[in-house]
């Protein structure tokens, strides 16, 4: 679904409905994935994006043909927002042949090149130089594309992040780095990761512009993000954006998240962009329980179908494990 309003316009009702649906699709996708995990149908690591969906939805709205999203292992939200088929995403989680990358990557490695989903990466910080490389190629070929590179706040302190940002700043590459500061790196709260409150303090060192806000509203997020994206696109001006956000689940399915209080989570629930968008539908646009439920039901149905598809999909062909290590193996 393409946005009906431009990033700078005030959203009309259709637009609110659309973003509500998009965010809800991600949430329901992940809730069903979470259930499948508990049932033992998904294995390995499963990092949920629940609470952060507005970021992916805002981002997807800004993408033009050829633009790229590069992100971490917490990547389902971007894939779904960018239009990757939920059934192929779910099949990937199930390790099945019809998965987004044929079942070889799992949760942490969603890639769908033509959709602009240039990947989920699992080594913290390791994707920043790679994303800078995509942007380098854009500048080299003049393709006009922007690379949006997402990272957790925990990734700010590792060497590869520094190097990737530094090169992007030095070479003035068309890239926007977005720190999704969800307050925790696994069990470590921000204040034990760094003594700094504002992570954009580093932008001047990289000669990047910066911006920073709390993500409670998808439209504000889209509007402010669009400014950085446009500067990257038209002026090769890289940016460092810090988004204050929250993940409602543990780091991954194996984390009971005992390191935070119920109160803290309750405070955050009030700020949840999905919750607030629902409130807006109810309060500003006259939606009642029935109307909300109708939307929800349709989405749950879509995602349940994805689960059914994933279950039905066969395991990869055993010989497939020998493919793609080198091009010649194909």
């Amino acid at each position, binding site marked *: 679904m393409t946005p009906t309003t431009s990033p700078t316009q005030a959203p009309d009702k259709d637009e609110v409905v659309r973003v509500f649906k998009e965010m809800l699709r991600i949430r329901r996708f992940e809730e069903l994935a979470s259930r499948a995990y508990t049932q033992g149908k998904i294995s390995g690591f499963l990092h949920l994006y629940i609470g952060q969906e507005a970021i992916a939805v805002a981002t997807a709205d800004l993408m033009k043909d050829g633009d790229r999203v590069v992100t971490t292992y917490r990547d389902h939200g971007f894939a779904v927002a960018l239009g990757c088929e939920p059934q192929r995403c779910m099949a990937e989680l199930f390790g099945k042949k019809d998965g987004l990358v044929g079942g070889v990557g*799992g949760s942490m490695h969603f890639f769908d090149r033509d959709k602009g989903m240039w990947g989920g990466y*699992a*080594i913290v*910080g390791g994707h920043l130089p790679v994303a800078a490389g995509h942007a380098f190629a854009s500048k080299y070929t003049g393709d006009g594309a922007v690379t949006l590179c997402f990272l957790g706040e925990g990734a700010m302190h590792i060497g590869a992040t520094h190097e990737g940002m530094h090169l992007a700043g030095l070479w003035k590459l068309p890239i926007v780095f977005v720190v999704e500061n969800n307050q925790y790196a696994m*069990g*470590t709260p921000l204040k034990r990761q760094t003594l700094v409150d504002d992570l954009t303090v580093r932008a001047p060192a990289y000669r990047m512009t910066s911006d920073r806000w709390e993500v409670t509203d998808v439209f504000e997020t889209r509007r402010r993000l669009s400014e950085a994206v446009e500067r990257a696109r038209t002026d090769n001006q890289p940016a460092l954006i810090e988004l204050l956000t929250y993940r409602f689940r543990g780091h991954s399915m194996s984390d009971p998240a005992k*390191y935070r209080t119920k109160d803290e989570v309750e405070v955050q629930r009030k700020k949840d962009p999905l919750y607030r968008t629902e409130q807006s539908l109810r309060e500003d646009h006259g939606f009642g329980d029935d109307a909300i439920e109708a939307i929800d039901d349709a989405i749950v149905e879509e995602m349940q179908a994805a689960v059914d598809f994933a279950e039905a999909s066969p*395991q*990869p062909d055993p010989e*497939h494990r020998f493919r793609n290590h080198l091009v010649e193996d194909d």
Partner: protein
Amino acid sequence: MPTLQIREALREAMDEEMARDDRVFVMGEEVGYYEGAYKCTQGLLAKYGEQRVVDTPIAEAGFAGVGVGAAMAGLRPIIEFMTFNFSAVAFDQILNNAAKMRHLTGGQFTVPMVFRGPNAAAHMLSSTHSQAFESFYCGFPGVKVVSVATPYDAKGLLKSAVRDENPVIFFESEVMYGVKGEVPEGEYLIPIGEADIKRPGDQVTVITWGQGVPTALEAAKMAEENGIDAEVIDLRTLRPLDKDAILNSVRKTNRVVVSYHGWPYGGTGAEVADLIARECFYDLDAPVERVCYEDINFSYAENLEQLAIPSPKQIYEAIAKVAYHSL
């Protein structure tokens, strides 16, 4: 004797060493408040405090290097890598600082420290999280490399590693932290550099370590059922190799399978095979067989992953092959 999980045995080792010597500290991601991603450090923060159980930001090169620097200054760091996969970003610190410092400084500095954490594939973590690092870390001088497969070995060898005056790379396994076994009460040490016969036998030698140990023991059972008496040697220390233990067994059995959870090219697998082929040239009745990972990046999909990992059956087949025994 009390029965412990490997993670508990490791924890006891750290606890005892920290109690014994206040220069010993543990550092790594989530080792403190979270009590370890795999709970190996559970309870240590409460007991020893933030100074000696140090949570770090995500900065493996940084805290690996801090460990080296602290060791040079007289402390005895235990650096936990959440998994050795993440040590790839700290490779330079291990290769160029930990392993070379004593030599480079003409013996002015020692680096008594341990780098520990799980190694090799766990379960369905895809390729970047499923790598065996011994082929990298055994490949250069200046370190010792240990790999443990039982609670007893885990405790005794970790204690020795902490007391060793050199940097020790200490491999564990995510999928084996819950493995249980007897661990004697009270203090004991297992010397670094000594292999252990996990199952005596005299027809075929199976050389293995780490995750390979339980698989090899299963294979030995299959062999026994088929009338072949296999000896299973757990190397335990991968650098330096316990050559005597290896060669003595081979001279007895004249037949060898090297079986491990790691890639085929080079590494400990090839080193051991070459050692045997050279030193036991006239003793061998069959070429040394190697059973290990397929030479491929790991897939998430369960079936593809399982196929890439050596199974007891494959090892048994290799045993039968070197014994010229029909299957």
